[in-house]
């Protein structure tokens, strides 16, 4: 596995959102003929047909500007990159998906746009001999070369998972001066985008549709409960309780109401606690006693917000709370000291 791969993988696994440029330098590989996600390095590797080469090999064929998307190869070329880390390319292409979601998008996009749009100065004097672009998307092709591949083939495409759609790319300024790294690799990987997804207008889906689907999935992801204006169910757990409950946060207009509802829900568990603590089991637990139990030193109500932090319920206005709360937890106050 090339060090680059390792770097990318680590990056992916740790969900580091620092731009991959940093990661690359951390790998000590230097920045050379590759885009932010490092994929073009493979591209140059591919073209040279030497798997271990890190792009130094200036295979003339690889430097040809060809038309076509990443991964397009004329048939005779394909035989060249048979042994490329094909299996590994799977991982390699997958992992860039993660960091790119976070922060690399914009930088990659820039590099893509400059690559993709041929400013006239770039184009002047370019002689097109063969018509395919070399791109990091050589990946899918090389994967497809696996001799044992069958019809049903799960290919990890060299695409970047992100919300940045073609729209976004379009808006990037199109300059013939590439941003940083990409200038050098224009001649090599023919300014092909780092990933398919960053090609303007591809796949050919109406932007209305792409936007609509993204909004939908955002809505579905954001809350733990069912999406929709009507209800907002979140899970409520309690330390020591054998199972969780769900409450609809939209049902309550004050914290007091929410608190009472939770008390009612979890009274059965606290009964047990009372018993365990030596209170005579036959004594009927009055509501006030229950309240004391919950409001007293025993338990506090906490929630996990959108950022994943555990917060004490009651600090923010209810509307804000409802918006950010993902789930609730009734903690023993001893555990809640950090809050």
């Amino acid at each position, binding site marked *: 596995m090339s060090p680059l791969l390792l770097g990318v993988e680590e990056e992916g696994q740790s969900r580091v959102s620092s731009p991959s440029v940093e990661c690359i330098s951390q790998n000590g590989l230097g920045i050379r003929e590759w885009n932010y996600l490092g994929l073009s390095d493979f591209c140059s590797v591919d073209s040279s047909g030497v798997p271990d080469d890190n792009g130094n090999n200036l295979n003339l064929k690889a430097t040809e500007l060809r*038309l*076509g*998307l990443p991964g*397009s*190869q004329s*048939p005779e070329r*394909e035989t060249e990159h048979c042994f490329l880390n094909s299996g590994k390319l799977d991982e390699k292409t*997958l992992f860039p*998906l993660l960091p790119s979601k976070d922060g690399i998008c914009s930088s990659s996009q820039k590099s893509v746009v400059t690559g993709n749009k*041929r400013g*006239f*100065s770039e*184009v*002047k004097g370019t002689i*097109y001999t063969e*018509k395919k672009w070399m791109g990091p*998307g050589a990946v*899918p*092709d090389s994967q*497809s*070369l696996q001799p044992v*591949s069958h*019809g*049903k*083939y*799960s*290919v*990890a495409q*060299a*695409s970047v*998972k*992100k919300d940045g*759609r*073609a729209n976004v790319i*379009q808006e990037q300024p*199109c*300059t*013939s001066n590439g941003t940083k790294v990409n200038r050098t690799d224009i001649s090599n990987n023919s300014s092909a985008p780092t990933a*398919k997804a960053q*090609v*303007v*207008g*591809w*796949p*050919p*889906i*109406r*932007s*209305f*549709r792409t936007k*609509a*689907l993204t909004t*939908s*999935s955002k*809505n*579905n992801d954001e809350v733990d409960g*069912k999406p*929709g204006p*009507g*209800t907002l169910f979140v899970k409520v757990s309690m330390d020591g309780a054998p199972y969780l409950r769900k409450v609809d946060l939209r049902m309550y207009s004050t914290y007091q109401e929410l608190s009472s509802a939770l008390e009612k829900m979890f009274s059965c568990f606290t009964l047990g606690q009372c018993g365990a603590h030596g209170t005579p089991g036959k004594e009927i637990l009055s509501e006030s006693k229950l309240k004391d139990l919950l409001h007293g030193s025993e338990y506090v109500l906490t929630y996990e917000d959108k950022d994943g932090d555990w917060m004490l319920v009651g600090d923010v206005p209810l509307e804000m709370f409802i918006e950010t709360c993902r789930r609730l937890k009734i903690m023993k106050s001893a555990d809640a000291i950090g809050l």
Partner: protein
Amino acid sequence: MNYFPDEVVEHVFDFITSHKDRNSVSLVCKSWYKIERYSRQRVFIGNCYSITPQRLIARFPGLKSLTLKGKPHFADFNLVPHDWGGFLDPWIKALAKSRIGLEELRLKRMVVSDDSLELLSKSFPNFKSLVLVSCEGFTTDGVAAIAANCRFLRELDLQENEVEDHRGHWLSCFPESCTSLVSLNFACLKGEINLASLERLVARSPNLKSLRLNRVVPLDTLQKLLMRAPQLVDLGIGSYVDDPSSEVFTKLKAVIQLCNSIRSLSGFLEVAPCCMSAIYPICENLTFLNLSYAPGLQGNDLTKLVQHCRKLQRLWILDCIGDKGLGVVASTCKELQELRVFPSDPFDAGNAAVTEEGLVLISAGCPKLNSLLYFCHQMTNAALITVAKNCTNFIRFRLCILDPVKADPVTNQPLDEGFGAIVRSNKSLKRLSLSGLLTDQVFLYIGMYAKKLEMLSIAFAGDSNKGMLYVLNGCKKLRKLEIRDCPFGDVALLEDMGKYETMRSLWMSSCEVTLGACKTLAKKMPSLNVEIINESEQLEFSLDDRLLVDKMYLYRTLVGHRKDEPEYVLLL
């Protein structure tokens, strides 16, 4: 020719409704031309820049229904910059000034302003029907004007438009006296609406047959609406989320059972899968099901639903249905004619949701299939050849392999043979979109066999000018050709310049066409508008004819250069 009085000929023409036929009829002789133009009520203009509104009005004084298309098709995919053109305004202004009694307006890919909508709503007292598809430039204020002023409005159909939402009062603008609504589709609007107004509107619209809601309309409103309008034929559900044990949901289940006229179902913009069982009773009668905007439904939810839809003729669905799910479709929906499978996550490498297997299953199980739009991660020649054997009725075949230059993963060959088989066996093919790794060979096949082809979309394909030439020479019925990122250049462009007069338009972007060639073409063919779209900062256009143009769009026209082009468009 004049054996019959004009009135008789005119009466005969009443039975001729297709645009093509009426156009042909008008060419027979002067007399027929005259009779035809006075009796013509419906006009279709595929490119709004091919004619001016003034000439339209002059020729067809009896115009009642106008269809206009603006931007080129690739504008859908952000290849055409903002403000390129396609403005409705001049058309409305001209029509408003004239004595045309416009009743119906259908627009696609046009820029529509609130002012135009308002002018429209006030200028034509008999205006009945507005259909906007993939348009932009207007807000809900414009929609409000239509609602408020068109007293006999029957149809307000907004499909996939980019509308700036000024928060919902538009619906309340329908006057109490408006009871003529037959079709209301506002699914593409994003903002809140007054639910009570909606309920009242539906209650006073006894002719309402088609209702498509947007995502803010909750389930309990849906239930109330269906109570009022059990006669609906086409329903688009907005939000479909509730607790299945709730009283509202129980009521909904009951009322859905009464809606046995529903033949078309869409929406589910927000959905709780556990609620889908309420829909099953109406599935039996469905002919059109569109779940392509319902990412909340997983593969098995979709499969379960589809199993009930035996009479389905058109299915639009997301690829999370998977190959297995498509297998269920294939065994259940024997009447299927049109299938569209959209990617639920176009940029995700992750799971290959549908592959060639699903398509093969469909082709084997659905003998009536004639229209396909299929997004997948891979395709093989073998699969396409099988599909071609199974299905010979294709009119539209659009295959989009998400990696645009992907070869056949089994053989590593280009997909030339596969597509070749498709065009060879589907002699009625009118529309074709290609993808995957393709050489000039596929174009040879297309030129040889696709004799009825009218629209062809090519991306990242071919090796040389020959490819484009095969198509231009062979496809005699070609009307629209759109090409991006292919190695086609001047030789191909200039070989048969007269061909473009037989076509509506040609789009070439990121190809190898030089400015000089475009200039030559424009000079030799005055009946064509040749537009160069240049978005880079280089403005030295006139300097170097050897420069490759980024985007070229040419179209035939009767009225020369348009006057509304933006800065970055050069009209040669």
